[in-house]
C-alpha cells in the first residue's frame, strides 16, 4: 500500500461530478494497490512462471542468439537479397491474408450467429478443421486440389498465389472464432434503438455493431497475421520454394539452420518477432481508434 490516493484530495472533484466521494476514492486507489490475497498471489506466480518458461525465455534466447553474431552478421543477413525477398513476400502476403480474413471472418461469423440454415452445425465444426489438420497434410491436400494435377483445373503451384492460398487456409478460423462469441452476446435492442433513431441497417452496422466487434476482430487479425508469417508446412509443397519468388521466411530460416548458420537464422527470426509486435500494436491502436470514433 504505497500509493493510495488521499480521500481528502478526491472529495472536491467527486462533489463536482456528483459521484459519491467514497466510491471515487476507492476507484482511484485500486490501480495503485499492490495487496494481493494469498490465492491471487499463487495464481499470479504460477502464471508468471508458466509464461516465462514457455514464452519469455525462448524469446530472449532468440534475441541472445542474434546478438552473439553481432550487428554486422545481423545486417548482412537481413540485407541478403534472397532473405530480404523472403521477408518481403512473407510480410506482404500475411498482411494481405489478414485483410481478407478481417472481412471474410466477420462475414462467416455473422452468418453463423445471425442466420438459420440447414447444415449450420456442420459448418460450425468444419471451420476449425484447417486449424486442426497437421499443416503438412493441409499442404498435401492443397497440392492435390490446386497443383499441376488439379481436378478443378486450377494450378497455382510454384506461384505467389500458392503462398497466399496456404496462408488463407490455415488462418481461416481465427477471426471467425474471436468474433462469433462477441456477436452472439450483442444486445439486439441496441440495434433496434439505432433503427428507431433513424439509422439505416448499414449505418447501424458501421456505427454500432462494428465498434462492438472491433476488439474481437483485431484480436483475430493479430492471431491470423502471426500464424501467417510463421507458416511452413502447408505451403512448402505447393509454393515450390523458389528463391526470390516464392520462398517464405520460415523456409529461409530452415535453410540457414541446415547450413549451420544459427546466428543468421536467429537474426531472421528476430525480424519476424519485431514485425509481429509492430503489427499487433498497430492493430490495437487502430482498434481503439475505431471504437472511439463510433
Amino acid at each position: 500500500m504505497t500509493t493510495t490516493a488521499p480521500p481528502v484530495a478526491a472529495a472536491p472533484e467527486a462533489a463536482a461530478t456528483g459521484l459519491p466521494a467514497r466510491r471515487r476514492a476507492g476507484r482511484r486507489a485500486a490501480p495503485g494497490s499492490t495487496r494481493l490475497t494469498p490465492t491471487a498471489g499463487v495464481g499470479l506466480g504460477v502464471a508468471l512462471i508458466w509464461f516465462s518458461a514457455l514464452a519469455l525465455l525462448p524469446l530472449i534466447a532468440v534475441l541472445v542468439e542474434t546478438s552473439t553474431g553481432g550487428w554486422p552478421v545481423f545486417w548482412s543477413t537481413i540485407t541478403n537479397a534472397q532473405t530480404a525477398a523472403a521477408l518481403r513476400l512473407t510480410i506482404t502476403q500475411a498482411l494481405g491474408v489478414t485483410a481478407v480474413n478481417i472481412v471474410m471472418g466477420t462475414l462467416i461469423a455473422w452468418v453463423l450467429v445471425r442466420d438459420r440454415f440447414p447444415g449450420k452445425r456442420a459448418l460450425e465444426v468444419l471451420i476449425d478443421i484447417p486449424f486442426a489438420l497437421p499443416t503438412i497434410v493441409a499442404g498435401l491436400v492443397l497440392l492435390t486440389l490446386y497443383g499441376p494435377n488439379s481436378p478443378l483445373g486450377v494450378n497455382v503451384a510454384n506461384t505467389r498465389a500458392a503462398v497466399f492460398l496456404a496462408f488463407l487456409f490455415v488462418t481461416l478460423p481465427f477471426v471467425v472464432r474471436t468474433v462469433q462469441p462477441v456477436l452472439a452476446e450483442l444486445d439486439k435492442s441496441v440495434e433496434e434503438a439505432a433503427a428507431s433513431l433513424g439509422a439505416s441497417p448499414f449505418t447501424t452496422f458501421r456505427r454500432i455493431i462494428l465498434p462492438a466487434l472491433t476488439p474481437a476482430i483485431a484480436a483475430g487479425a493479430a492471431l491470423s497475421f502471426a500464424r501467417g508469417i510463421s507458416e511452413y508446412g502447408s505451403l512448402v509443397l505447393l509454393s515450390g520454394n523458389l528463391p526470390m519468388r516464392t520462398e517464405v521466411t520460415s523456409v529461409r530460416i530452415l535453410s540457414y539452420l541446415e547450413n549451420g548458420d544459427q546466428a543468421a537464422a536467429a537474426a531472421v527470426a528476430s525480424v519476424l518477432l519485431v514485425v509481429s509486435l509492430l503489427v499487433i500494436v498497430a492493430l490495437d491502436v487502430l482498434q481503439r481508434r475505431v471504437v472511439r470514433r463510433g
Partner: protein
Amino acid sequence: MSIEVSRVSKLFGDFVALDDVSVSIPTGQLTALLGPSGGGKSTLLRIIAGLEQADTGRIDIEGRDATRLPARKRNVGFVFQHYAAFKHLSVARNVAFGLEIRKTPKDQTADRVHELLKLVHLEQFADRLPSQLSGGQRQRMALARALAIQPSVLLLDEPFGALDAKVRKELRDWLRRLHDEIPVTTVFVTHDQEEALEVADEIVVINNGRIEQVGSPDELYDAPANYFVMSFLGPVTHLDGKLVRPHDVEIHTQAPVPVAGDTVAGGATGGAQQTAAAGPAVEGTVVRTVRVGFEARVEVAVAGADGADQSVEAVLTRAEARTLGLAPGAKVWLRQAPGSISIDAPAAAEPRELVAAV
C-alpha cells in the same frame, strides 16, 4: 388521435400475441398499456414503433399510414427496458446519435444535446461512458436520446422495470413532471398497476392479446369493465358471491341491521355495480390478522354455498382493528360497505384460472 391502431393481429408461431386489437391513442397525453406479462402489450408497442410487423391490421401515426414503414422512418422515440445504451459512445454522443444521423449541423447538435442533458439532469455526466452511470441515470440518458430527434410519439417499453423500487418511484414522478413540461404523445408499457394509475392520463388494459378496457385511471378504478380489470387493478376478495375490494368489506362484531336498498347497475353486463345501501351481513370467524404498516389485514372464514369454508380478506386501519378487538377465533359479521363497487363473481372455477393467468 395521434396513433390509430386498427384491427391488428400478431401471431408468434401458435401463440396469439395480439387478437384483432383496435385502439386510439390521444395526442399529447401519457397513455399506459397495462397488463400481465405475455399479454401482448409489448408486442403492440413494438408494432407501433415498427420493430415488429403486424400480421394483419393497420397503424396510423399522426394521420399517416405507417403500417409498412420501417422503424427508422417513423420518427418514433423508443426507450427499452434494459436501456440499450451505445456502450462505446459517451453520454453526450449517445444523445447526439439521432441528430448525427439526420445530419444536423454540429453547433445545433451540441446545443440540443446540452439542453436535453440538462432536462434529464445529466449535464455533468456528458463525457462519461454509459457503463459509468447507474441504472436510473442510464434510463434518463436513453430518454434524452429518444427525445433528441423530436419524435412525433415517444414509446417506452417497461422503462422502469429493471430498476429497484425506490429509483422506480422517483423516475415515475419525474416522468410525469417531464411530460407536463414537454407534452409529446407518450405510450408506456407496464405490468405495475400502481405505476399506471399514478402516472397515466389514460390506461389501456390488455390481456391475452385483447383490450379489456380503455379509460382514465379513475374510470378504470371506479367502473372496471369486468372481472379481470377489477382484479388486476388492485387486491380483491370474494364476499357473498361478489368480487369486492378488501377495504370495502365492513367488519361488525354484532349482526348489523340490514337496510333495504337497490344496487345501481354499472355499465355493460359483467361490469361493476355500485351498492347504494348496506345489504345483509355474512357471519364468519377471524382466522388471522396481519399488520402491515398502517393497515391491518384480517382473514375471515365464511361458510360458502357448498358448505366448505371460504376465506374473505378485509383491510381496515390499525385503529379500527384495535377498537373492534379482532383476534383469531372471534365471531364477526361481514358486509359490503355502502357506496362501494362490486362485480358478480363468475362460476367458482373461473377466478382461479384468471389468477393463474396473471
